[in-house]
């Protein structure tokens, strides 16, 4: 994001297309750094003729966002370190008695504060109301304080699988595709929780202010890369769900292992029993506030 803004200020956009998460796309769109997209005219319709915006549905979280995949932030744990009672609830994260050992959590507030409030007894549908208040934010941090000494904070998603493989942590949050690849492709003794997974979208934005010729090339690529079949195809490599509704039935087997991928998708009904869908507007609006508090809290 920093580089994009710097490019915008310097008037030298060297990127044609940027891969961002949903919440970032809202910020970029709000700042005018991303181009607004007319999804129906610029993107391919579904094979049955459903327009692109209907096919993508809720995943179009801002006017600039071209969704690509659905992923979730969830928790993985070391099978050999949790004894006979593997965790089934997200609140195991905060249960140092039942699951002693280190945890790895994201160095950003997203997901951490929601889980903290949920496990502090806030009903799921009130979490964002509570989090919008200063007291609610303090409450979330107070809950996180109870495990702060046992937390290793990650800033790159690859760290948690590495820490799990080392046995350095007993459990840690990361993206579901990372856990899938550690479990299925690398055969690590790791299990994963789907409870209270934070569903999020990843996709493209086009930087504002691209010259015509580059823009045409980019739109051409996007039209191809986000059509129904292409989105379904990428699921053969990692367990991230396609953002289009029409792609879901086309999800096939893993490219190398040959196992069906559908059960590993965060959107699979069996996995999606207790899901947080990231509240983008909330995060776009409150990110600065909560982030500042969170970072100050971390540094204590």
């Amino acid at each position: 994001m920093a580089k994009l803004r710097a490019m915008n200020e310097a008037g030298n956009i060297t990127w044609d297309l940027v891969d961002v998460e949903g919440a970032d796309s809202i910020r970029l769109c709000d700042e005018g750094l991303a181009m607004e997209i007319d999804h129906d005219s610029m993107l391919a319709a579904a094979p049955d003729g459903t327009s692109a915006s209907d096919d993508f549905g809720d995943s179009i979280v801002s006017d600039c966002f071209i969704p690509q995949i659905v992923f979730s932030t969830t928790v993985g744990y070391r099978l050999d370190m949790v004894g006979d009672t593997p965790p089934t609830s997200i609140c195991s994260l905060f249960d140092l008695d039942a699951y002693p050992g280190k945890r790895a959590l994201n160095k950003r507030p997203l997901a951490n504060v929601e889980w903290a409030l949920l496990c502090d007894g806030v009903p799921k549908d009130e979490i964002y109301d509570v989090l919008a208040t200063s007291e609610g934010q303090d409450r979330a941090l107070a809950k996180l304080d109870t495990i702060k000494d046992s937390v290793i904070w990650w800033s790159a998603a690859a760290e948690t699988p590495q820490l799990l493989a080392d046995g350095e942590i007993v459990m840690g949050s990361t993206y579901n595709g990372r856990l899938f690849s550690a479990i299925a492709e690398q055969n690590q003794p790791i299990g994963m929780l789907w409870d209270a997974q934070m569903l999020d979208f990843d996709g493209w934005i086009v930087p504002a202010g691209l010259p015509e010729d580059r823009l045409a090339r980019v739109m051409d690529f996007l039209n191809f890369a986000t059509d129904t079949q292409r989105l379904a195809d990428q699921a053969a490599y990692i367990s991230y769900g396609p953002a289009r509704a029409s792609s879901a039935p086309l999800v096939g087997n893993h490219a190398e292992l040959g196992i069906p991928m559908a059960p590993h998708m965060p959107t699979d009904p069996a996995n999606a029993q207790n899901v947080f869908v990231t509240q983008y507007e909330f995060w776009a609006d409150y990110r600065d506030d909560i982030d500042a508090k969170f970072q100050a809290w971390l540094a204590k």
Partner: protein
Amino acid sequence: MASTTQEFRPPFATFTAPLSALLAALFGFVVGNAYGEPWIGFVMGGVLGAIIAFAIDKLPFGRTQSRLGTIVILGLAGLMTGSAGGVVSGVLIGAVLSWFIYWLDRGEYRKNVPLYYTAGQTLWHNAFMLICGLIFFFLIAPLLPVMWLSFNAQDFFTFTPEMLNFEAAGYSLKHYRNFLTTEEWMIPLKNSLIIAPIATVISVSLGTLAAIGLSQSHVPARRAIMAILISPMIVPLIISATGMFFFYAPLGNWIELNLGLSQTFVGYVKVILAHAVLGVPFVIITVTATLVGFDNSLTRAAANMGANPVTTFFRVQMPLILPGVISGGLFAFITSFDEVVVVLFVGSARQQTLPWQMFTGLREQISPTILAAATILVVISIMLLTTVELLRRRSERLRGMSPG
């Protein structure tokens, strides 16, 4: 040197035997500790040490035979524990112990100290050597797991049980294959090999000139100039990186628009300039340091005999300050070759350098490929440094100088 070792044999019963036993007892303690019985290990180690010392002292074997014998015996003892790790530690302990005993027994520990040293001074000398050895170990130690892990069969930075048991299944060359055959790594390597040498040439040529200017006796505002030239080294990198980004982005635009150069070419130019400026302080520092000892009457003599300034520079001054220039150049090269923050900001995807790729490799997909890359680079630099040293010795020999 042979004379001292043969003349001097310290007393066996009061010196060699107890000390050997002590070291062996320590090893025994450690090994025993691993099995939960440290003191039994301690006693057994001590006894074993004394026996080996006795054998080395009294039996008529040469150095190689005694040492090999000890290593084999302890290796076999390690085999009894039934694991490959046991054999390795047995062999290691055997090597260390036999070297130590031989070193004590034949009086080699006095080899490098003057004859008049007292026992205390000799002890201090050897302790000092031990300390230095440990510091060198500290310097090198982190490189060992890097090399070892680069042969990992898994995609993690973790020693698997197979690796620790030295089973073939735990090892693989796939990370080397990945490094050498994929564009993902070869293009960054190529980029680094383009950017670093050019940046080095720029900073060395400009830096050497400026250092010569700076070392003259009357330079106005010398301190201020020096401070400015050194500044790329002292400004925290992250600030330099952002500052340069804001500067180079519009500059690049302007060049592309007005001079009609391609974006890729301009991208390289930006990174090269940025790296060149970072390398400048190292060249300035090393070259001015060499020039401090430079005798200016030499240039005057050359001028006296009719050489023009350019000839004087290349024929008289340059050969004398060459060592400084080369070492400055090495620093500048490594600065560029190992730089990741500035290139992340200033470069675009086409100028991805090796450290950049390593950085992404570390942050995005922790993969031992970067360890393979590092191992290859370490091996290359060992070869380079060794070649330089061998060449130096050869030229010394040729010039008939005694090896210093």
